[in-house]
């Protein structure tokens, strides 16, 4: 049995909202991920994907449950968690006044990469992503495609065993999105644990070894694509997703209609 590098149990996150009161953005979710696996969180906007991943990245503090990455608890040892982690999302921008090379050096150093190996590692990544030509230019002057490559290199510069990609293809053109998918495949093949969130069905079908369908802060169904197909009788992931969500909505509506009935965990 493989060691679970990411283990999530009953994870919860509640927020206070002026108009809505207490909002449970994540409502007790469980999953684990293995090395060399791409685990996908598939859900609509506002389903709780980003909140979940931010809790794993120790940016947000869980209000319930637990999560550990590479054996480190997100509450007890957040710095060790972050050292084991590369986090990429559409909102993790780069410093526009640093060059690509400086960006990689900076993040390698603050992520604790051995100082005497930083330059070698940076040059290696510059070659790997084909960014040598503009590695000396300031990031703010580069095109979004170039910045994306540097951003991915920034995510893996300290060679973390776990990578989180939070909707990484949002806003990218087709070619850039394809390149991102290729990188994720390569990283999986290197044995990294990859958690990937998306609301694009085709991307999840293509990339993920296992998929958790998340809706209103809960994982409705979790398994390989084949397992989802068998459980729902639907072929396309989009149909599977709609089926699971509709079923959850129905159950929710029934629970609302008969408030005495206890809520059941999906």
């Amino acid at each position, binding site marked *: 049995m493989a060691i679970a590098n990411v283990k999530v149990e009953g994870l919860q996150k*509640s927020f206070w909202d002026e108009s809505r009161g207490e909002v449970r953005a994540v409502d007790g979710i469980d999953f684990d991920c293995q090395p060399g696996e791409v685990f996908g969180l598939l859900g609509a906007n506002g389903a709780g994907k980003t909140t979940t991943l931010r809790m794993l990245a120790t940016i947000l*503090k869980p209000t319930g449950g637990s999560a550990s990455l590479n054996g480190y608890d997100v509450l007890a040892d957040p710095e060790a968690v972050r050292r084991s982690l590369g986090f990429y999302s559409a*909102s993790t921008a780069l410093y526009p006044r640093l060059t690509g090379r400086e960006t990689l050096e900076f993040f390698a150093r603050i992520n*604790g990469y051995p100082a005497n190996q930083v330059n070698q590692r940076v040059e290696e990544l510059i070659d790997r992503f084909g960014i040598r030509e503009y590695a000396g230019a300031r990031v703010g002057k580069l095109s979004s495609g170039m910045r994306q490559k540097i951003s991915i290199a920034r995510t893996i510069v300290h060679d973390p065993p776990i990578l989180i990609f939070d909707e990484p293809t949002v806003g990218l053109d087709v070619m850039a999105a394809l390149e991102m998918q290729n990188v994720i495949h390569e990283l999986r093949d290197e044995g990294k644990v990859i958690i990937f969130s998306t609301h694009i069905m085709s991307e999840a079908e293509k990339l993920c070894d296992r998929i958790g369908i998340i809706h209103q802060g809960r994982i409705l169904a979790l398994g390989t694509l084949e397992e989802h197909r068998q459980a729902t009788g639907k072929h396309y992931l989009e149909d599977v997703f709609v089926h699971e969500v509709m079923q959850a909505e129905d159950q929710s509506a029934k629970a609302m209609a008969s408030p005495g009935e206890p809520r059941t965990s999906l």
Partner: protein
Amino acid sequence: MSPKRSDNTSVLGTLFRCEIKRLMRDARVLLISVFAPLVIVPGYILVMQWIGNSEEQRLEDTVYEYALSGDEAEWGLEIVSAALALEANDPDTSQAVVRFERQQVTNTDSLLQAGEIHLVIEALSPEAYERSRAEEIAADTLDPEEDEVAPEIEEGSDGGTAPELQLPIIRLRFRGNSDFSRRAHDRLDARIREVRSELRDSVYLAGGFPVGREEFASVETENTASAEKEGGALLGMALTPFLLLLMLSGGSIMAVDAITGEKERGTLETLLTSAASRSEIVAAKQMGIIAVGVVVVVINVLNLLAYLVLGLLELPENLAVALSLLDLVLILILFLPLTVLISSTLLLISGYAKSYKEYQIYFLPLFLVFLVPSLAGILPGLDLRSAIALVPIAGVGVAVREIMVGEYDWLFLAIAFASTAGASWWASRLTQRTLLTERLISSSDLDEADLLGGPALFPRHVLRWFVGMWVVFFLTAIWVGGELTLQGQIILNLGVIFLGGSLLMVRRYGLDPRKVFALRPVHPAVLLAVLVGIPAAYLTGIGLSTLVDAYLFPVPQSVLEAFGEVLLDDEIPLWQLVFFICVMPGILEELAFRGVLLHGLRKTWSPVIVCLVTGGIFGLFHVDLFRLIPTAYLGVIFAAVVLLTGSIFPVMLWHFGNNAIALVPQRMGWVTEETVFPEWVFAIAFVALLIVFWIIWKVSTPYPDLKKTRPREFS
């Protein structure tokens, strides 16, 4: 595999270098915020000086034109001629001679209003003066700028007005909105008064006055302060606000980008998901703000010095400053916590602001909050040896002024340093906490404690409440303290501020009164121990005060006498004194300090620190500096008893007993302020106090939920 972590210094250094590098590459910010002021500030001073000098030159070069009118014009001409002769032959060369020229015109008023002439001199007989006044009153066109000179009448004498004595009048009419007209008036007015004075003296002499005029008119002044001291006082007043403004504006260049900018760019999330800890990130950003602020201060000061050396700017005449190396070191030490305070606060608002625009909104009030206390050094009569030393920033402002005039009150210099250092430490903690809050990243404005609200939020807010209560306490003491009787003061302080504030906190945070006020039963042995502890702690306290008086700072006799007067005031019956000085503090001060405050801080620090902090705050609420240490000492003892027993009742009894033992024997005349206890009494009292604490400790029922181990921190 995850590589091992580098040491903290390396990460801190990397973060700091990155901050500076990013700023240095922002050409527009550097140009507008750093280099432009180097030209603009001295340029502004230069232009102002040039305008001032040009104006002065024009005033000096002008030949002031005046017209003479009135039915006593001939007599007036004599006076004016004498006055102008004085002006022309003035031996004082420090001011330029003003030249006047008479214009023979008739329509004087219209020419004056048109600016054709600078001054109209009316020489009027009493009848003409009366007519003129009557016309003016009728026309309601009385000009308050008019001056009337009655040469033969002493100002402020009982001799009545000039018309009553039937004496002629000289009236100067000028236009106050014209610098030239005003200059003509000021100078001629002064000269006419001199002439009048000489005329009066000659009348005295002619009348056989026995003393020569040169004797009774002789006035001599002498300034005993050296030029260095005067210059030091002048610069000392301005130095703190000047450097503070530069530091604020310089530090802000970095601060606005430090967190607000990171939020707007989206780089904050990238940074926070790195392995750098929050404390390293905060420290690096704070170092960046300090570095940029200090550099801006240094280059601006050097820039001004360069302008002075080059002779482009001029200092006021006779301005001399003599600073020793010790003075410079002391000033630098005093500015150190101020620098940290500024950087922490700037970083704090950078953390709170969601955008550059919001940062600007916060910056203006912050600017004023810093500027106003920094001006304390300018206030006349404000000495460092006062409560001002306790006010952060203000204490430093006054301390710097005193250092620059060569006065070194070491204890109060240390207090001024400590108060600003304490504020900077607090601001640093707040800033650190800001980066722990989730509002930096999530759309929610609130973090976990906010979400849980009520009691969970209370420990975070309790110090703010007490700061607020202290401000109200301090201001009411200044504004209405003197107006109230002793009873009124106690009702206001204890009944309104302490009890009112405490109840407001209980209500606002939904606290359980039994828990927050520690209303728990105690072991009977504790109460017995307290009865012994009351005299033991009281006498130990006197011993401590004696030591403080002897070695730290002597308590002025006036303070002791003032305190004694209250106790011995026969107009207040003893039962009232007991009620207001013993019962009320015993209950209400305990509910506020050992109740609410201690409850709020119990999980923040270890029990020892909680005792010291609550004791210190209790001392600060007794505003008078000379009572700070004795009351803080009692506050520490009371806090320790509450933490050991988990109950407020023993300290209510102790507090009541302590005040009673201080009051009743003195009121009854059994002891006086002059009573001196032998030293062995203090030694026995101290041993007894230790035994009392040992007994309480043996039967202790500790306060629940104290901080025992360092809680897990989400760093």
